[in-house]
């Protein structure tokens, strides 16, 4: 019986060793587990953000919970943006969004000294000149909001539903061109997605390749 006890004590030693190895691995794996990053893709929750507006307010995405939010990356000197403002496409969509109770956030992520970077006063003035009426203009000089959404071009559009889920991300329409003539017969993806969401239908084209000028981040 003494020998059996011996055997068992050896086993116990093995077990303790095994258990410590388990624990060590578990710790190693746990320490490698990084903080998850929210990918700004349709179907995923929209990354939260807070920004300063041209009117001097501070707004957060969470302020608009329950409302449809449209994000528009812009740079007033970019020829692709000019096409959509001169052709009254974006001002028209902004008016429609306001009429339907949606929130339109125009976001300027140009780094100071780069194209499209403007003062708060100038941003408001520009919208007045262009007949544009977004709910807010967000000045994102640091580019933090732009990076969170992986905004690549001006324009680059996002639609976020009342539950905070991204429903559309991508180009404003299917005509990747700066030529004003390309607006004729263009399929406007944002307009289509808003129609479908209003009808309670899933968005048929939830993601497209954005086109336009690059967003002028720091170092760009």
């Amino acid at each position, binding site marked *: 019986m003494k020998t059996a006890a011996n055997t068992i004590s050896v086993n116990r030693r093995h077990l303790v060793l095994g258990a410590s190895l*388990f624990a060590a*691995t*578990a710790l190693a*794996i746990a320490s490698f587990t990084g903080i*998850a990053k929210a990918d700004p893709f349709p179907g995923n929750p929209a990354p939260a953000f807070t920004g300063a507006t041209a009117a001097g307010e501070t707004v957060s995405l969470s302020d608009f919970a329950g409302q449809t939010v449209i994000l528009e990356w812009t740079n007033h000197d970019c020829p*692709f943006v000019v096409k959509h403002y001169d052709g009254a496409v974006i001002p028209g969509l902004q008016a429609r969004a306001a009429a339907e109770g949606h929130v339109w956030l125009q976001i300027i992520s140009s780094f100071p000294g780069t194209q499209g970077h403007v003062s708060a006063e100038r941003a408001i003035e520009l919208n007045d000149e262009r007949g544009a009426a977004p709910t807010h203009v967000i000045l994102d000089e640091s580019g933090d909001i732009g990076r969170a959404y992986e905004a690549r071009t001006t324009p680059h559009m996002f639609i976020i539903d009342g539950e905070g889920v991204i429903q559309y991300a991508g180009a404003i329409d299917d005509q990747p061109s700066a030529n004003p003539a390309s607006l004729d017969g263009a399929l406007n993806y944002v307009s289509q997605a808003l129609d479908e969401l209003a009808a309670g239908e899933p968005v048929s084209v939830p993601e497209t390749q954005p086109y336009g000028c690059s967003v002028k981040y720091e170092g*760009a």
Partner: protein
Amino acid sequence: MIRLLAALAALVISATASAQEFSPDGPWVHPRLTAARASVAPGETFYIALHQDIAPGWHTYWRNPGDSGLPTELDLTLPEGWSVGEMVWPAPKAYPLGPLTNYGYSNGVTLPVPVTVPADAAPGRLEIPAYASWLVCEDICVPEDAHLTLTLDVGDSRPDRAGAALIAAAFDAAPEPAGAVQAGLARGPDSLVLTLAGGPLDGGADAVSDLAFFPFNPSVIDHAAPQRVALGDGEARLDLRPGRLTRQAVTEAYGGVITFDHHDGGETRRMAYTIDARPGAQVSDLAAAAATSAPASGTPGGAPDTPSTAGSGGSPSGISFLQAALFALVGGLILNLMPCVFPVLSMKAMTLVEQRGIERAEGRLLGLIFGAGVILTFLALGAVFLAVRAAGGEASWGMQLQAPGVVAGLALLMFLIALNFLGVFEIGTSLQSVGSGVRDSGRRGAFFTGVLAVFVAAPCIAPFMAGALAYALTQPPHVALAVFGFLGVGLALPFVIVAFYPALLGFLPKPGAWMIRLRQVLAFPMFGAAIWLVWVLAAQTGPNGVLWALIMLLAAGFASWAFSMRGVTARVTAMAAAVLTAGLLYNAAIQPTVSAAPSSTDARWADWSPEAVQAARSEGRAVFVDFTAAWCVTCQVNKVGALSDRQVIDAFAAHDVALFRADFTNRDRRIADTLAQHGAAGVPLYLMYPAGGGTPDILPPLLTGTIVTRAVDRAVSP
């Protein structure tokens, strides 16, 4: 009109006039239209090209412009009957713009298009009008365009030397046609894997540097993410961040261009090849380059944050071959301690005690034969897994336990081993007895003990093995088999060491009655293992399966008892009972599987489905998913351990975490897909989705209360 005159003027200027002055107000591109022929013959195909002189610091775009920009376009207005083919694009360069990347050309580029003259073309002078448009960018972007005209004679075929030189240079800079380099594009657990094989890559890292991939379609990869490059002789592997079209899976072939510097002696040449990547294929066995290696200079952009590695470091498949081999080795070692394996190996070790002092060489040989049995069985199992995977099936570890027949068979095996330990029956030259003096049967016994050890170990997946197996299942066959081999080495190692150094067992007393008693005691863990397997069967087939399995064990017990009797009647009875056992095993195996899973009885846990998870997430709740199975020991340990911990339950409740349990006891395609997506070879898998959205945290396979509560904290912190 001015543009037209400028274009005509440009035509007059020779091809060497690239250092022209650019006005500070633009235009930023000086275009001209040129051709390889001054005069063409009817029926001939020749090239017309748009040449752009680009202002310093500015660039125009490739056919895939990258994250922004537009490809240059050229429309020729050709006479009736003439036809134009596709533009030839010289290999592009990557232009990083902060976190974005563009593909294009600087200084100058020539873009040829093939034009075919009809056989009945009338001789004489001809003007071909063209409209070219492009976007040219520096810090800012300017769309430019030009109406250009080319004057051409139809008659004899005569070259235009300046135009031909430009067009020849464009062809030199254009990629070689597809075929020289084979390519496959497949979704890895946390990257998009482009593998390349072919003669142009001969010499590996000694001959090739700055390898980069430029897809034709702008939605295949994240252009700005670093491209991690691993080079081998005649092969390469690039780990990329997937784009919109490849985020879930690679379902169609995508073309593109690879460029690299080729070093031969002191000479370096820029090379470019067209590739046509086969979907889901892997044409090279290279492992991924280390994530920590500096991005190759060919990696476009080199964005400061590298999203391709963010948030996925915890994935068990994000490990290297060496780590996988080490985990497999340790996992195999730990298998020795599993309740179903330990008794078998202990009894095997006892035979060495009996042999002490006699025939050391034979003992060592037996140890090696045992080791060979273990390793070969693991390799065979590995081969079966790979075959299932190659056949397009869902290969995950533990899947063998999804077949009720296998579970019932293992229960029978455990039960018979236990009866044998208790001495109910002896096998002529028992697996455990080598003292019979018959060397061959002793050797055979040692081999089959090795085989047996693997089979009884199969249900006991050790947490270490999860990572190693997940890695193995995503690797090319020889790497995968090597990992399985290391599992075998780990399982066999302790016994082989003891066989070589029997002195290690020196603390044990001389052989005697204690050995018989130990053997009898060790029967009970085997009964325990059999009970557990019957419980698994209950989850799979319900009461009917359990009934048939228990009757099978009854028949097996009866057969064992009859087998130990002497005489013909006893033998016949034993045979009949054995046949009955086999029949009952078959009966248990064919029981239809039931969906009612025992794990879904806890009210706090909802049944898992991707839709349910999505719904909970869209409410802004954090979500915890437990991928489990009745046959998974680790899962059960976690379920009654960490997941039943008071603090964990409180943390879940306090933060309104949605709890889902996915039961993999029976086969389930959707669960298998989800496991594969997160790089898991099997269950357990624990996912903690953060409340703010984004990719889930993968928790380690062996949980503690702290690991879970920390994960909850992370998931709900903004």
